């Protein structure tokens, strides 16, 4: 029995090593997106999104992606941290790092570890420690909320600003495009005997 648990835990640890923790994922990223995206580097065994119970829903997601081999997991991590990696066309690089056991909600109990739960008397010296810890957790929660609020604000601001830039640039593009669309530019080029390369190879994905 004990050895079975032992084995289970070893297997779990193995899995942890094979797993990549992805952060900063767009809320729209689905399992298949992740799967396909990482399939370039190795076989994806499973994708598990870590549910977010606390924060607003529109926060970035995170996921645990289990690769087939440990090496592949490493490759994914190094690649994604070396190059900004976009997923689902979202203009925000995804972060990757090695998963750790605590990230798994369903992790098996560590063999040999025992958790004892009991009520503490107010007089107990541990009581103070416990209440402090409790306090701390609460504090963290508030802090996180505040931080998130600020983060959202900032990003909104940024989004607005960038939206304007994009709009402006798109306007430019449209203007030029209108010239292209009705062929005026090309006609003129022909009149000038100007050789205009078709796309200069730019417009295509090549």
């Amino acid at each position: 029995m004990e050895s079975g648990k032992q084995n289970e835990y070893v297997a779990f640890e193995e899995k942890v090593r094979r797993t990549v923790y992805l952060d900063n994922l767009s809320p729209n990223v689905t399992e298949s997106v992740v799967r396909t995206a990482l399939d370039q580097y190795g076989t994806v065994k499973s994708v598990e999104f870590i549910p977010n119970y606390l924060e607003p829903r529109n926060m970035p997601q995170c996921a645990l992606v289990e690769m087939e081999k440990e090496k592949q997991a490493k490759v994914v991590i190094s690649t994604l941290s070396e190059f900004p990696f976009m997923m689902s066309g979202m203009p925000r690089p995804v972060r990757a790092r090695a998963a750790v056991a605590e990230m798994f909600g369903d992790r098996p109990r560590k063999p040999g570890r025992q958790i004892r739960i009991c009520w503490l008397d107010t007089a107990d010296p541990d009581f103070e420690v416990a209440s402090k810890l409790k306090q701390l957790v609460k504090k963290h929660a508030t802090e996180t909320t505040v931080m998130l609020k600020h983060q959202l604000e900032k990003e909104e601001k940024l989004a607005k600003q960038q939206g304007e830039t994009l709009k402006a640039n798109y306007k430019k593009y449209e203007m030029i495009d209108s010239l292209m669309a009705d062929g005026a530019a090309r006609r003129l080029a022909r009149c000038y005997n100007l050789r205009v390369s078709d796309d200069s190879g730019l417009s295509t994905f090549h």
Partner: protein
Amino acid sequence: MAFSDDEEEEALIHSVSNYYFNDEKDEAVCFSQLPLQFGGKECLSGGSKKKIFLRGIADDGLLTICKHVTAWKFDLSNVGKPGISVLSKDIGWLKLQKPRKSFEPVIRSVLISVHCLHLISWNPDLSGKSLWDQLAKIFRYLYEVKPSQNDLVDHMDLIAEAVKNDDSLAKSKHVLVRNEFLVVKQGSSKGLQQFMIMFLSFWFFVQLKSVGCLCFEQFLRSFLEEKPKKRKLANENARATSISGFIVDDAVDGPELDDSNNDDDDNDDDEDDLYDSVCAFCDNGGSLICCDGRCMRSFHATEDDDSARESACESLGFTPNQVKALETLLCKNCEYNQHQCFACGKLGSSDKSSGAEVFRCSNATCGHFYHPHCVSKLLHKGDKVAAEEHAKRISSGEFFTCPTHKCCVCQQGENKKVEELQFALCRRCPTSYHRKCLPREIAFDDIEEEGIITRAWDGLLVNRVLIYCLKHEIDEDLGTPIRDHIKFPFDESKKRKASDVLTSHERVGSKKKTLALEGTSQERTAMKAAKQSSSVVIADQTSKKSEKVTPRTNSLKKVKATGPSKKPLRQNSKSLPMDAGKSSAADGNKASLGGRLFALMNQESEQQIKPGRQDNLKGGLSKAAVVDSTATSKSSDMPSLDADSERRLLNLMKEAESSVTLEDIITKPKVLSTHGYSSRSVIDRTITLGKIEGLVEAVRMALAKLEDGCSIEDAQAVCEPEVLNQIFKWQNKLRVYLAPFLYGMRYSSFGRHFTKVDKLEEIVDRLHWYVQDGDTIVDFCCGANDFSLIMKRKLEETGKKCSFKNYDIFQAKNDFNFERRDWMSVQQKELPTGSQLIMGLNPPFGVKAALANKFIDKALEFNPKLLILIVPPETERLDKKKSLKYPYELVWEDNNLLSGKSFYLPGSIDANDKQMDQWNVMAPPLYLWSRSDFSAKNKSIAEKRGHVPREPASSNQEMNIDETRISDFELPLEDDGLCDDAAELKDHMQNHEIEECKKEKSVEVTPKECSPRQQSDEKNQSKETSSNKKRKHSEENNGRKTDKKIGGWTPRSETHDGIPHSSPSNVMDSSRCSVKGASSKLHSEENLVRKTDIKGGGRTPRSEMHSGIPHSSPSTVMGSSRSSVKGASPKLHSEEKLGRKTDKMSGGRTPRSETHSGIPYSSPSNVMGSSRSSVECAASKLHSEENLGRKTNKKSGRTPRSETYSGIPHSSSSNVMGSIRSSVECASRSPNQLRIPNMHSSRTPLRTSYGDTRTSVGDDMGRRYHMNYDPYSADTHSHGYRPYPDEMNREFNLRSQVHLYGQEPGLFPRRNDLAGLNSLYGPTTPSYGQHNGATVNPSYRMNMSAMQRYAPRLDELNYTRMGGAGPEPPLMGNRNAFYDPRPPFMIDPRAPRPPYTLGFSPGPYHPYSHHNSAG
């Protein structure tokens, strides 16, 4: 400062400029090799005892000197800059002015050191960061690379010496400490350098110890302390901290960053050429900011700018921070639509919507506004009536070009390409001259005796001369006319009088003079670089940004550094007033950041403030702090955030934010240097809305002018060709920049694209013939790494053993012989010699194939014997490359293979979770290049295998590209037309989709089938099975097809079905097979014949169909090969055929369906199959005349191919040329019939010998072959742009002759039979022809209209369409809605907000997507 110049000696010569030093060997040496003198005594002897000579121009340029010098010294007592002098034996101290340009690098580090000392001596309290900033400023124009500690390292001795001798320096010890500290820090981050620097520091320390400076002891100690601490921090694995720990280094040694900017500058050079590259105020260059509005002027944004200061420019008066924050600049004029008339200078409304008073000149780059009456007066000098009339027209909105665009002397336009005809434009009024027409009074130099002052400057404007015409009085101080020429609306408060601003403006004029004098290209490029406002501004920004960061990091460092002793901490913190607060907070012997945070926490809790908030952003670091704080934090009630802690949190956030800088992110992925990170700045700052408005207007006007019958020159006065070019360039730039939004979801990951496996298989199919045992096959950008595996499999099949090497910068899933590496870093010795190397495949393309070229160049270093490349057409061809060790020759190229959906985007999925394909509009050709010493061999292989395509004359290409595209879609259209159902159009599109799916299926099938069949060539035993398979296959096909037919859209579906099957590989295969069948035993002559056959058969159609271009769409090819199948049907009754053909159903096709029912060889692969099988039959059963049999067999084998031609008339009818051609075909048919008997006789033996259905198939085919072949060639002939049809005919004749001669006499009886068949043929012909004629014409017309109707639809397949559909600004909302199911009011920062990218991603990923590809 102890040293000063010796007064008496200065009387002689006191300064030398344009100087340089050399030693006896005439090598440039630095003067720091001379002994250094302080206060008259020699303190520091230079390294060598060489004789060193100073050369240069003494004093006022009159005297060139060459003096032996023995010592040098520097003088820090001057205010502006340090003086450096050298001691000459005979004339004493010579002050060094400006070094010779080429000499600058030699003395760089010593100059920097001296300047550094100078700055320190004058500003003892200067912080390290600002010191470097100032140095960077001083040397900005001198050196491309920013000054850094590295420059000081070489001159430690000098610095030490100076410190020893100089009180003021001694006072600023701490600065030096900091400097050295920085040195050390940087060193420690760089590892190797560390030891050296430690040594130096130690030496430094020893030196200074004699001076008794406690500070340095401390420094050293702190240095020693520093290391372990940093390690500890690193262990904490807090990225933020490690960044902040190194931030100074990052900020200071930013040469890479600079470089990247410079690169961009190069790319964008042409951007600015067309527009004013000088400030509208002061007419000087520098870092300018361009107005986004219609005036298109550039301004100095801030007075602080060097060039602005230099010309005493009043500038827009922004602070540098404002400049940074500025998204786009809209000048007051453009903002309020109040522009000045360039003629009279008065402001007027330019708002066309509400009664404009001034109008802009329509020239695309002009940007000047005029009152109608002002400009018309100028345009019609002396003719009042005309002027008034014109003024009216202008007022009513007519376009005009202002007088600036005609030389005021000769009234001719400008030609920038001819120097004489370049313009000199007055900056103050609409007056311009040709260079040649420039009056003498407008001179480039002062001519004092005539009282002429400089009015013209070269090199400030690109390809133009900047002048002030004689109407304007030059202000002596300014060197320009008085700068009151710009009026902004509502701007009364600010008196725009430049002379007030002037402080030390003597330099202005002289500066310009030197510019004009030295108008060398070098100078000009320097100016240009400086003018790249955008990038400079950006650079400024980033440096500013990092400046912000520095104080904090400094403080951190301080804390760390001074941990061991408190005393110096206080001392230091004095020099850092800004940091005082923080440092004092840290004043609890807390050394690390964590400790500091802990201290913060402590303080809080002690002060009974509610527990402080910790920042989770910092991860482990703050966690540690938090954990610490738990011990001390007092418990309280439910924590709600008070203002204080919130502020603290915010501060922490700010810190965290500032610790990650843009350049961190930019410099981090140092992969391929061609990434255009600056695209944003270019787009935002250079491509302004106003410019584009102008461009668009100008293009339209120019076109209108041309259409009105004006001369080209007139049009060019409005819109120069360069401008037009610009617009294309800009469009591309914008497209690249906006790509993420234009292409939406298609954009993913690294934007790579891989070649699809089936395409790779085709390539391998072709390539493996050239591979020899023992070769190494290198895929330099292997992507998914499929190629080498497929190759390996193939080669193993054919019994060759090769090694493989695959490189990519991204890990491939399949790690077969894979190495994750940048191809550029692969060394020559790592791979075998070139004669065993086969390299290539699909490199990243890059913008304008830049990356592809780079990859190829790198590959050429290895001198591979073969290069197989999938590269864009604009890639530099290898035979055009000069200075190669081995020249390369093209073995073949295939423009067709990779058309359509040949690539996929790895990691990206579409809405249906399917791997995304990529549709390429312009298929990248596939090239096989051979090293010239191998090319003979390779070419012979190519010919043998039928890989050499018929290349049409290049002159045809241009025209054909269009046709290809059209034909892609016309073919189906035609079919629709034949189905005579207009409603079909819809179905058509739907079917198309279905077909695509099917296509994929069938693609899977084809390759599988391929190999057995090929083997069957050699192994007759397998014949049975393979043909069985084929039969099944065909039956399947058949069923499907008839089904479709019922649906009424058969032709269409066929077409699509055909695509995969008939794609090049098939055509190729078929030709190859036939070659195979006959190959080994044939004589060379026969080979020749065959080859031409193949050309005629397999290849020509393809190119023909596309009227001379091999970019045939697969569909067409397919169509043709399909129809060939038809030809194979032996059981068809002539009546049936006839009926069918006269039927409006596509004649070519109908029989085919017959084929399916009657004959197993019906599937697309049948082309191959039938030919092959007949070969097989012949091979096994032929008697002694094997050769003959082969020949004939081969012929029948080829027949299907030639049948292809029968398809052609149909398909070509869909070509634009179709109608013409088909008529030609009709005409040419009759003569061809004459030839038929011949051919048939040649065919007969087959029938006789076997008499089975198959042979008769051959016969039938043969008949068709003739019938179609000839018209075809005649047809091409008549078109006249095919050089070879004649030849073909000749060959054809020749061949038939050969056959005739080769015939056994006993075959004659069969001829009758044939004749009978021919009689069948007889009636067929007219109907056939008629069919062509009749259907083609209408269908052609139909195509045209349908084409138009289809246009948008067709585009849907093309990415361009995406462009149209994707990105309308309102659509951004849509996009969100589309991607983001959440309610719109909840703005999701993480959601795919298009705008976000603008921050940085277009940089990183646009380039990738364009550049990265792999196969």
